[in-house]
């Protein structure tokens, strides 16, 4: 799409793509290895892939859920290799632990599309993802410039300690608010990505901090939880809430913005559609894809929420 930052795969196509392309007459089994469907974002990724694949009659997509366990995901990919799938889509739980097994698949001639989180090295066909640091930066800038131009107190609700996106969304955010020294992060708490954890952490934050102007949450569910906590003590009007992910589902962030609970959220694209498009290019069109495709984030606020929600859910 427009504004896509990309780099071309250098020289010839990967060993995999050429061999596995049987054109439009072929039948293709695609294995999708998902890190953890218990995260709404990743469930949506699977759903997007499923929806996009419906439009490609040659494709038969299988799904595996690693339930947040690196070792299980390694086994999932091994099992796909055993099944001799034609293409692997993987959204790795973590980079390093999956690198070896992805390389193994790639070396066996299976094209690999990596989503959301990279693996190390370059033994894959293409990567499609977002940039968490950039999202954090955008959110920081938005808060520093739009919500608190004259400064104020921010509390940060972080994701699960130890998760990469948590660190990156935090890091980017600090960069983003640098421009406005009057914006202060007065407290941070870990909500483990969970709505109820966001709620109970916010209970305490509200108690401990009489003046909060903005709640910056690492994802939408925690932001919603924080909103509920503030509402319970009648303080939801005193402050603004921002989230990240902007899933176009009824329980997602776009709806929350549309309904006025959140001031803004930032899309973290699932890339499901893009992944199937890339797979089609490799298998059906016998073409090559970009080695790395970073989809930009979009700011969702009251002005565009309804429109984007409708765009993302064309059927209803």
């Amino acid at each position: 799409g427009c504004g896509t930052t990309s780099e071309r795969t250098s020289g010839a196509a990967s060993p995999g793509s050429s061999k596995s392309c049987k054109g439009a007459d072929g039948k293709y089994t695609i294995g999708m290895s998902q890190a953890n469907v218990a995260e709404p974002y990743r469930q949506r990724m699977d759903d997007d892939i499923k929806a996009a694949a419906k439009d490609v009659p040659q494709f038969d997509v299988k799904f595996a859920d690693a339930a947040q366990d690196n070792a299980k995901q390694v086994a999932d990919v091994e099992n796909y290799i055993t099944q001799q799938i034609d293409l692997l889509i993987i959204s790795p739980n973590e980079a390093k632990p999956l690198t070896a097994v992805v390389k193994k698949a790639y070396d066996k001639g299976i094209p690999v599309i990596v989503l959301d989180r990279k693996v190390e090295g370059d033994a894959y066909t293409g990567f499609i993802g977002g940039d968490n640091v950039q999202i954090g930066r955008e959110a920081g800038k938005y808060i520093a410039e739009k919500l608190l131009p004259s400064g104020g107190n921010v509390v940060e609700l972080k994701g699960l300690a130890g998760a990469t996106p948590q660190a990156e969304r935090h890091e980017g955010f600090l960069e983003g608010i640098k421009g406005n020294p009057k914006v202060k992060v007065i407290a941070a708490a870990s909500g483990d990505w969970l709505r109820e954890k966001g709620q109970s952490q916010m209970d305490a934050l509200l108690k401990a901090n009489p003046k909060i102007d903005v709640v910056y949450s690492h994802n939408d569910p925690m932001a919603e939880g924080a909103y509920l906590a503030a509402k319970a003590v009648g303080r939801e009007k005193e402050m603004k809430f921002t989230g990240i992910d902007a899933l176009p589902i009824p329980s997602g962030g776009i709806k929350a913005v549309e309904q006025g609970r959140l001031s803004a959220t930032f899309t973290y694209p699932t890339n499901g559609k893009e992944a199937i498009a890339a797979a089609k290019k490799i298998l059906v069109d016998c073409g090559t894809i970009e080695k790395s495709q970073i989809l930009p984030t979009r700011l969702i606020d009251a002005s565009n929420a309804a429109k984007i929600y409708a765009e993302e859910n064309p059927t209803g």
Partner: protein
Amino acid sequence: MTDVQDRAAPAEKRSVAATLFRFQSVFGLIAVFVAAIIFSPRKNGEILFVSADNLANVVRAVSEIGIIAVGMTFVILIGGIDLSVGAVLGLAAVGSAVLMVENDWGFLPSVVLVLAIGLVFGALQGVATAMIGIQSFIVTLAGLQIARGLARIWSGGQGVAIAYGDGPKEAPTSFALLGERTFGGLVPIPVIIFAVVAIAAVVFLRVSAFSRHLYAVGGNEKAARLSGVPVVRVKIAVFAICGLLASLAGIVHAVQLNQGSPNDGIGYELDAIAAVVIGGTSLAGGRGSVAGTVAGALLLGVLNNILALNNIDSNIQLLIKGLVIVAAAALQRLRPTS
């Protein structure tokens, strides 16, 4: 008999000690409460921890675990364990949301169906334990996976958002009331539900014949059977009650978060078990009380709250919580009769 007099004195003395120890879980709670006051951050001279709305929050935050823990107490009293409660909570949360939002059911039929599902799920686990004789740890470990799988399938894998209103795809506003606060906006309804459940359970255990049967099954199953206690029925009933309460907690969960997600309640079973054990109920069965469980749940809630108020690093929080659980359990060992 000659030794009646001799024994009267120690018996008296014992009953004082016994009374004290009966409330030892409450002591643990008081100790943590006092510690919380001491370590509470202050703002403008106000001790934040003891402010009315903070205390309301503390109880609100434990209300779901508390409701589950009451049911868990019953199961542990008969010497069993129920690992499925967290998953059943998730299933119930999904159920409430799907029925009211997607199927446009009314408030009452939805709640009744969801509670019935929890009841039947629990009862089936009771059947596997009591009639086939599989250990409850295993039955409910399997039950956990099955309930989680069902919740995922029912919800389509995504959380189902709950919006209120009279239109289609909206839950009845009466349902929203369950998540509100009452008494001048101070006391959250979930707290009241928790309190009602706890008091009902305490009274039930005190006055019903069923409770004697329950303690008997946990204390000496063979003796219970020989005395004509319907052991199988008691076991099934207890697992059914536990399932019912877990699904009640799921409804409360859904209304508090305006959403029913299949991933709700992961790991809640361990918190509930911790509350029960800290409250002085023996995992071996036959000994314990709901009052202790309530104290145990509140203790955990106060602990969480004070750690959060002080912004303790989440990793250090894990260490502290682990140590407090061990300390609270060690306190139980001070009982005169073990």
